[in-house]
């Protein structure tokens, strides 16, 4: 039973990962700093999903990346761009709508 709950929970979380990630990229972040930011807000992150996700979002034109070679080790920084910000805003609205719908269902409302 625990396994089943774990599977459903993971599925639920995976669906919200993109929104969570986009919300933290208003300033440039690199992979691990993003992980820390999210975990500080109490969100558990599956890192094996996060890094490929960042790459994919960049490929889809939502993020831009740049390599920073000045510090102790080279780091790839990601930042949300104009198109990405637009999508982020709309996605947030969709999330709020979904939240409302689900809350209604769970509370037995109409």
């Amino acid at each position, binding site marked *: 039973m625990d396994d089943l709950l774990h599977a459903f929970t993971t599925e639920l979380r995976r669906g919200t990962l993109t929104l969570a990630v986009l919300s933290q990229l208003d300033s440039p972040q690199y992979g691990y700093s993003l992980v820390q930011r999210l975990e500080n807000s109490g969100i558990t992150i599956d*890192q094996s999903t996060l890094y*490929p996700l960042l790459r*994919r979002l960049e490929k889809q034109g939502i993020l831009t990346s740049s390599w920073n070679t000045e510090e102790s*080790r*080279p*780091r790839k920084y990601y930042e949300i761009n104009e198109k990405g910000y637009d999508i982020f805003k709309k996605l947030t609205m969709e999330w709020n709508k979904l939240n409302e719908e689900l809350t209604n269902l769970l509370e037995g409302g109409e």
Partner: protein
Amino acid sequence: MKNLRIYLKEENKLDLIKVYMKEVTKRLPEKMRKDIALELESTIYDMLPDNFTEAHVEEALATLGNPAVLASRYKDSPMHLIGPKFYDLYISLLKLIIPIVGIVVFITAFVNRLHHDVGTDHISLVAVSIFGETLWTVISATIQTFFWMTLIFAILERTIGNKVNEPVTLSGKKWTPKDLKQIPYVPAKREVKLYEAGFNLFWTALWVTIYFNAQYIIGIYEGGTTLTFVMPIFNQETLMAYIVIIIIHLILEAIKFVYMLIVRQWTIPLAFGNVVVHIVSIVIIILLFTDAQLFNVEFIEYLANKRNETIGQTEAMITNIKWIIGLIVTAICIIDSFINFRKATLK
């Protein structure tokens, strides 16, 4: 000695990282490798404290997870040979094609071997060799068909699979209710079973081959454990005189088989075709049985001898048997035609 141990411990924990990196990047296409490798390595070291131990490394790598899974997520390519988009189509085609291949190869191989091997050796050895070779040919052909179909679908999955989002139907597009119109509704009573059709064709092909080689197969065998062929029953020359109509019958059966495969149920035209084939069978029987030269003269003498009667008596008995066989075959043909006509008119 102590320094060597410390050195090795250092090497071990670094090796762990290097091996992990290699496991991920080796599964990635060349273009992606450098960028991902750099980012990944940087990330791993970010996760480790300043004086990290092997245990720290293991913990860090555990959060990243299975390198194969990580690599597949970077690649965004399927971790399966044939996925949900094409799987149903793949299985349906396999179920359709492999039985047909099996039947056709079986018939051709069997008939071929029969024609080839008969008369070359002792009958029991010949039978074993024919069955063995035929079975092997069928297995081999089936395996090859399976391989090629699987290969084609695996390639499809990796090429046009990216443009397709949902399982593909036989027409190649997304399913709509209109697709149902393509599938004829076949009530169970009217259905032509595949093995039934195949069996008929096989039976005919078998008899034709035996017919060709009757002089070696159909005859008197003597001896206890080791049977030896003594003489043929039929006059081969006579048999060969009717070869044209025999071949026509075989061709008609083949056409009937193909038509059955396409239509898959008993329709009126198919029932008519069935009757035609049966009529040809009856005509063949009549032609053969009314030919005075059908039997090998030596055979009739041998039989008369064994039964201690005159040739005339033996021939009379044979004529009776001919009548009985003729009537039985005609009855079977009529019944079969009737049954299938009834099937064809069922709603």
